[in-house]
């Protein structure tokens, strides 16, 4: 952006942005399909060996946990 400003400074913020793009926002906007086709190439490519599958699973478990705790109240 102008003035060399960064919107997302931390790696975690960028990871969140990427995940949401691949698995939520794109489908929400274009009403077609999720952007990720599930080929798994990103897992092999990642220099830090971050698996997108386990990241998604972690996120999913967190969502289940949150919704469960909400319904119990």
């Amino acid at each position, binding site marked *: *952006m*102008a*003035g*060399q400003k960064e*919107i*997302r400074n931390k790696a975690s913020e960028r990871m969140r942005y990427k995940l*949401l*793009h691949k698995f*939520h*926002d*794109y489908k*929400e*906007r*274009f009403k077609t399909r999720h*952007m990720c086709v599930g080929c798994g190439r990103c897992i092999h490519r990642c220099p830090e060996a971050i698996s997108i599958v386990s990241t998604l699973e972690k996120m999913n478990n967190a969502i289940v946990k949150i919704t469960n705790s909400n319904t119990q109240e």
Partner: protein
Amino acid sequence: MTQQNKNHMIPTACKIISVVKETDIEWTFRVESPFKANHGQFMQLSVPKIGEAPISISEIGDGYMDFTLRAVGKVTNEIFEKQAGDFLFLRGPYGNGWPVEELKDKHLVFITGGTGLAPVRSLLNEFYNNISSVKSVTLISGFKNKESILFKDELKKWQDKFKTFYTLDNESIEGWNSGLVTNFVKEIDFNSFEDNYAAIVVGPPIMMKFAGLELKKYNIPDEKIWMSFERKMSCAIGKCGHCRIDETYICLDGPVFPYTVAKNLVD
């Protein structure tokens, strides 16, 4: 080639007509262009082998367009090497511009910060030349310091037909106010506009946020406030998702949004 399989990413070489140096790091390039654009849209400017950058159109004329840009990065530094007669590569125009028809016959309040003046400059000039198409124009324009003042001649010209408040953030020079743009919103008498007005806010994200909050203090309805967002669009055709804020693609849905949408766009 049919329209359907046209490659939208192919730019057109356009000749630079003139270069105006507004400040040391902000220059206005006037470029010959065959494109038809609306006020507030943006184009993708590129230099072969270097890269591409989204730049808003700061003036539309007969067969030419103006781009005001600041040398801050790889592409813009390279563009600053160019002079009149050289070529710039353009594609576009992209995005939705200002709702010009909707703004006509209204009292308009423009609040701009720094380079935020560039996306509204063509609109201001349009209303300056047809002042009868609007009820009144109030322009609040702020800059950081006296070195960063853009469009000096035009700021002077607009003073005869518009009500203007020009301000510098933390400096005071003759003929200029001092302080942030949000301090001048209280000078506007919104009651005298008889509910027939619109406010246009462009600037850095932090300035737009506080200008929006300041306008809300005067009970201005959300749909009367318009904002133009700045994002680093990469493809500009809704493929890459770089300019996305949640599920809103700034390049397709914006960059101009009413405050009803804009207030929820928090990144």
